[in-house]
């Protein structure tokens, strides 16, 4: 075990221990959980602009689709969250494909504007279809998440009742943690797979990728579906966590914030997405405190986000954790080549 994995494991343990600390109040846990929700969103969004190089401005639409899928299924059919999660992911993926299929042949700019239109249409739908979504009133009182294993415990011992309802911030904190770790490892695996390599090839040059035998359109559709499914999962979590949904929660600002996170962290880098979420949410909470004291409305904190995006693109276009093809750094032939070149004083 080298120092890097040791450090990572220590960090994971430290995060897990946070709720046990005496100073960890509800506010801190709430913000941390929020950060983790955005981590999942950022990783989901990263698939399309980061790995495939297509600017997606409407990611929040899938977040909304997922959240409302979960909220409505919970309120109308009282399904368990564990059953809803796959349904919501599937629903998100379907919408991702529906949005993506007609736009397959579009270049970056057109794609960006269509995605933007899509997320606006989602908000319009959620606001206007009152029979389904209660419109601007939102969905209050969504039941919290719970784990119901009573059928198992009853079978073992009729006295046992394995049923836990998630109350307070702690259970959600751990649940979000599991979600982040799960999505992170899934994305890392996909990145290193055939699919991930195809995505990178498309990002660099889709014409060259097509010439190399990659079916660009299929891989783009897969990217849209994966990205949308992750967004929907984050949305379902949000529904059960906040227990309230309204169309206002899924406006363009959210897409922008998530985009800003991955730009800050480095497009295409999953670790960068995590870093970006931590930095921007923490900064958002700080600004929310500071700005009103300076006599400015709290929503003007977005001026900082806008500025960050412009400056990053200008001075550090690959973000703070740029995505580099690190597989090459471990390739013995390349390592040997570099060493010999260095010995000759070429590099």
């Amino acid at each position, binding site marked *: 075990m080298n120092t890097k994995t040791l450090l990572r494991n220590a960090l994971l343990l430290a995060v897990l221990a946070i709720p046990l600390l005496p100073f960890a109040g509800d506010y801190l846990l709430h913000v941390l959980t929020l950060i983790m929700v955005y981590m999942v969103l950022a990783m989901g969004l990263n698939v399309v602009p980061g790995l495939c190089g297509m*600017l997606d401005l409407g990611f929040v639409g899938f977040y909304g689709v997922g959240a409302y899928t979960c909220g409505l299924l919970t309120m109308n059919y009282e399904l368990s969250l564990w059953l809803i999660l796959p349904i919501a992911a599937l629903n998100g993926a379907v919408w991702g494909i529906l949005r993506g299929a007609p736009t397959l042949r579009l270049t*970056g*700019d057109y794609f960006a504007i*269509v995605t933007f239109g899509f997320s606006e249409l989602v908000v*319009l739908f959620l606001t206007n279809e009152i029979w389904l979504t209660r419109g601007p009133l939102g969905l209050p009182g969504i039941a919290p998440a719970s784990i119901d294993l009573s059928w198992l415990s009853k079978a073992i011992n009729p006295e046992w009742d394995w049923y836990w309802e998630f109350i307070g911030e702690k259970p959600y904190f751990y649940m979000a943690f599991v979600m982040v770790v799960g999505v992170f490892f899934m994305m890392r695996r996909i990145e290193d797979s055939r699919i991930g390599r195809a995505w990178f090839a498309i990002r660099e040059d889709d014409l060259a990728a097509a010439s190399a035998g990659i079916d660009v359109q299929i891989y783009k559709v897969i990217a849209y579906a994966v990205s949308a499914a992750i967004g929907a999962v984050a949305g379902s979590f949000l529904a059960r966590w906040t227990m309230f949904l309204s169309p206002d929660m899924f406006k363009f600002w959210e897409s922008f914030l998530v985009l800003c996170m991955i730009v800050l962290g480095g497009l295409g880098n999953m670790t960068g997405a995590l870093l970006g979420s931590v930095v921007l949410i923490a900064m958002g909470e700080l600004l929310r405190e500071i700005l009103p004291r300076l006599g400015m409305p709290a929503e003007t904190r*977005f*001026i900082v986000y*806008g500025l960050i995006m*412009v400056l990053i693109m*200008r001075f550090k276009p690959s973000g703070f954790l740029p995505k580099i093809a690190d597989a090459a750094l471990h390739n013995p032939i390349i390592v040997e080549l570099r060493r010999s070149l260095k010995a000759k004083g070429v590099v």
Partner: protein
Amino acid sequence: MLEQQLINGLTLGVIYALIAVGYSMVYGVIELINFAHGEIYMFGAFFCATFITAFGLPFFPAMALAMICCACLGVLLDIFAYRPLRRAPRLAPLITAIGMSIFLQNLAMIVWGSRPKPFPQEALPAFFHETALTFSGVQLSWLQLFIFSLTIVLMIGLNLVITRTKTGTAMRALAQNQRAAALMGINVNRIISFTFMIGSSLGAVAGILVSVFYNTMYPTMGYNAGVKAFAAAVLGGIGSVPGAMLGGIVLGVAEALGAGYVSSLYRDGVAYAVLIAVILFRPTGLFGKAVRQKA
């Protein structure tokens, strides 16, 4: 009723056309969707209102001054945000454009507050809200007449600039092939600045007209108008100035009819529906030309 809807749609349509021209021209020369264009439009309205209330200027000089200020803003936007990224990958200026749009929007919120404000009506000529014409039950106010005539004058003027002047010719050359244009001795950056100047001042006019017409302005007004104008530009064929004009008018009428006869709740949705339909079935728009990838 139908006629009144049509007239209102046309009024909105010519305003969309003014904004759409800005998108289309900029796209024509640097192939970038200038997302911040909607914010320039919003700034136009706020500048004009500020000049009226703070300096006591009459309406028309305030409008001219607002146009000049917005032209400067557009040029600054290009110099600081887009020029350094001319050679960067496509994604970078696009993200910068979004960032600038958000930045400008929030800047306006800090300066003027986030609540909707009425346009200072006392500065407007008093006859604006009187009815100018009535035919078969349709009322056309002087304001609407003013909007139509001003837009038509501006459009004709713009067409003359583009087709008859040397700068306009340089602009068209740039749109065709930037490198070849540079080799012919055209100062590329100056022409791009000029394009931003024209587009932004037309956007400012549109912003002023809309805020006078609806008697309201707010920092997020550029957001929806921007998307609609972009849809108009795409409908007309992006990069084509006459196309943008026609696209704006068609979109304005479609929106008014859609709101009147289908559902007013989805009024804003019409633009997106048109946009997606055009992109699907006729990506070059009405007047656009097909461009080969990687020539």
